[in-house]
């Protein structure tokens, strides 16, 4: 089916249209990654992979990452290509929908932010701030599959 999945983030369970998001990203991945000329830096994986995050911290860091992509990344990814822009819109609106669902659980205090997730997210922001905003946004968008793989 459209691949709605129930993802577990600590005590939070959120139904997400992962297949729709992956389809949208796969359609523009090559185009987006071709725009990223800085190969020596990763936003999400430097210095440590997301996979190193404790499961108890999963919910909090996912909550932070949804906010990060929605508040900071997508708006700086506008391109001259209408098709790419439509797919980015599709992903952005899906992220907005997911951010809202996870936000509800976060508000019910079931999404505890530990030391590790706070440190990890600070590192991600530091990596992001190293670059100019458009390069940082494009690189972050190009790394979306890293986030999707980790979430699933």
């Amino acid at each position, binding site marked *: *089916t*459209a691949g709605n999945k129930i993802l577990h983030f600590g005590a939070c369970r959120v139904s997400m249209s992962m297949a*729709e998001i992956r389809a949208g990203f796969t359609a523009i991945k090559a185009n987006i990654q071709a725009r990223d000329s800085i190969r020596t830096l990763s936003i999400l994986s430097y210095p440590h992979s997301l996979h190193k995050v404790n499961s108890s911290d999963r919910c909090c860091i996912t909550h932070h990452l949804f906010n990060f992509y*929605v508040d900071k990344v997508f708006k700086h990814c*506008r391109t001259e290509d209408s098709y790419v*822009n439509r797919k980015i819109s*599709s992903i*952005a*609106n899906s992220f*907005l929908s997911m951010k809202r669902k996870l936000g509800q659980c976060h508000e019910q205090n079931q999404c505890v932010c530990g030391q590790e997730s706070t440190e990890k997210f600070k590192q991600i922001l530091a990596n992001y701030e190293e670059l100019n905003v458009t390069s940082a946004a494009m690189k972050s968008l190009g790394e979306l599959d890293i986030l999707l793989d980790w979430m699933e």
Partner: protein
Amino acid sequence: EEALPPAPQNISILSTNMKHILTWSPVIIQGETVRYSVEFQGEYERVYANESWIPISECSLITATLCNITEDISATVAYNLRVRADLGARRSEWGTLKGFFNRNTTSLTPPVMKVIADGYHLLVELEDMGPAFQFRVLYWKKGQERRMQQKVVKEVSSVVHLDTMEAGAEYCVKAQSYVEAINRSSSFSQTQCVRAQGDTSMWL
């Protein structure tokens, strides 16, 4: 100076089974060909991206008065849609859909279904309604409605095996479609009943 064409009116969306079609009334200008262009705006664009609009290239400068927006309405959030008319170099104001559109308002119909008795096997064929759809199939031996059974079908393959039937007995089936992305179901289809081969006297 030549007048601008009027903005398109009666803009609405026909949405059935997660297929969304935008339609509008034609702008009639005698002896002229009017062309239309469509743009959409998701909640993300409205709230986080300066209320920007995104053109749908398949529906840019078209003469038809409808546009399939299914592929762009790909999240369960509120969308805005607008259409404008072009007459040569002259361009109308935008006509905008009244209110927002959210795909969770799509109307869902029960699946087309064919029930088959293949010897003692109760089978059902279900319509492929697209990747967003799952199906809930209920089946029972006629007269034993309280022992109704259920099967959830997530991927539509050719035929679904429901049960092995008792000889000569009649079995009934009904089904509804379900879309997980919007967490909604259709009504149930008509019930269809079939009879297994052999005669009931075998069990007496």
